[in-house]
């Protein structure tokens, strides 16, 4: 994963929690001290928790291209490792959301005929994502066995 992916994740956390924190502060200001201090404190704690979780997730994401299959690893609480043979790939998506685009990132997702397959590689540099997609498409074509 590109280190920029971590920046992007942090930005998302900031974007989500900043208004919440602002709102909590506003409530505190409006209703005045006392127990209301807990509200922004709680929001801040949640933000930190989210930050820690995201950091863990960012660290566990990983993928490896082997000779015949692609291995994707992910998850902090639930650790997952998926092995997807190139020949089974049906289509490869490259998507980029607004935040991803701002950071020049993209997500590569593989689909097979099985609904349960979840091989998603987020936070690749745009150019890397395109290269990976083309590489996968090429080997997939060579080994295609479909169903």
């Amino acid at each position, binding site marked *: 994963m590109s280190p920029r992916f971590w920046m992007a994740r942090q930005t998302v956390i900031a974007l989500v929690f900043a208004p919440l924190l602002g709102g909590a502060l506003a409530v505190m200001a409006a209703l005045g001290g006392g127990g209301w201090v807990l509200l922004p404190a709680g929001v801040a704690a949640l933000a930190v928790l989210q930050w820690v979780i995201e950091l863990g997730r960012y660290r566990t994401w990983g993928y490896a291209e082997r000779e015949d299959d692609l291995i994707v690893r992910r998850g902090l*609480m639930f*650790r997952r490792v998926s092995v997807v043979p190139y020949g089974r790939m049906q289509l490869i998506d490259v998507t980029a959301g607004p935040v991803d685009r701002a950071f020049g990132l993209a997500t590569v997702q593989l689909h097979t005929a099985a609904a*349960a397959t979840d091989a998603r590689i987020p936070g690749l540099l745009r150019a890397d994502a395109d290269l990976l997609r083309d590489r996968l498409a090429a080997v997939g074509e060579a080994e295609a066995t479909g169903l």
Partner: protein
Amino acid sequence: MSDAALPVGTSWRRLHPLSPLVRFARIVVGLIVVAVPTLEAARGGAAGRGRSLTTSLIVWAALLGLSMIGGVVSWLVTRWRIGDGDLQIETGLIRRQSIRIPLARIQAVDIVAPLLGRILGLAEVRVVSAGRGGEHGRLAYLTAAEATAARARLLALAHGLAAETPEPPAQPLAVVDNLRLVLALTLRAGIAVPLLLMIAAAVVLIVAPRAGAIVLSTCLPILFTSAVTIARTFNEEFEFSVSEAGDGLRLDRGLLQRRHETIPFGRIQALRVVQPLLWRPAGWLRLEVDVARQHGAQQSRDDPQRVARTLVPVAPRAEVLALLGRVFAEAGVEQPPGAKPPRRAMLKAPLSYHFLAAWHGARYACARTGRLQAATVVVPLHKVQSVRLKRGPVQRMLGLASVHVDTAGQRWQASMRCRDEGEAEAWLWDISAKARLARRHSSPGSRQRAAPPGVAGPVIA
């Protein structure tokens, strides 16, 4: 029909003239069911106000007439033929629709005969084709003879044979005894438990009438639902027989509506052997099949793939295992030593630990799960789409991990739950490697099981 002398389907022709009657019978019956009480209420409630009765009568009659006219028009504008390498169906009055199903992509041709159709000697031909968003052609209805002829022709052409090739002879594999089916269905937990409740309630009723009445009235709806389920299942699986033809398995079943289905061997993604709790003393098993289908496709009520999932509703162990062996050569459900997960898995899965087991060989991966009913999923390794290792927080604490083997099927994956961590990791690589080998060995064409000479395997997309 003027061109009756020609082989079925070579020229444009209409469906059978009685089709609208069969097709819209359900709507008509529904309308009548709704209309009669309404009319009754109108008559009873508005005695003397004759006009409202007449008005509603006219409205209902108009609805009835419209649906009939709709049926006749749709029959008038629908025609079909087999030619130029595809099955062509043209239909629609306002929105003309022309459906072309390439014969090479036909996966299966099923014949379905609803009750009214059977009385009139009519049957529907359903064509299941491969591929993303594949068209599913329906010819409703043809005469029974025409339907059989059309099916033989479609299958022959789909396999690249001469159009006049007759259907390959089917070799019967198993027939399910109706009496056993009824017994087995009654013993399924969903039905047996309410039934026992009912008996208990009846006992209470005798002992203490007031309390009994309450219990009984609570049980009745549950019992009613179960009765409906059992009746429906019985109706679907009556006179169930499985036979093997060159291109796949043939299923014949149904009480009111007879179905003749084909499941090509190449489309079978996984088999599952199920044993509900109460079947254990009798030693009965149920064999189910999972076939390839595009996920996310619409799940229509009459979808042939939705219903073609039971291979044998109930049979003694030996029979089921023999059939399993016919479909997946050398596959078995005998657990080799070491199939059980480690003892500490009991902490993670206390309710299903007694059934948990998983093993794999050179050609198949098997996994057994279940709390009350044991279910063993057998996945042929050459059908594996991906292999996944999963470790939840509790599993990590216990040093356990689960391995999931995915196929293109809709229903199940082989879930090897709660294995030892190291073993699971080793299996992940081992199964991927074996699956790769299995894929190599089953190059397209050799994927079919020994087909009789002269019958090529069906084309798999």
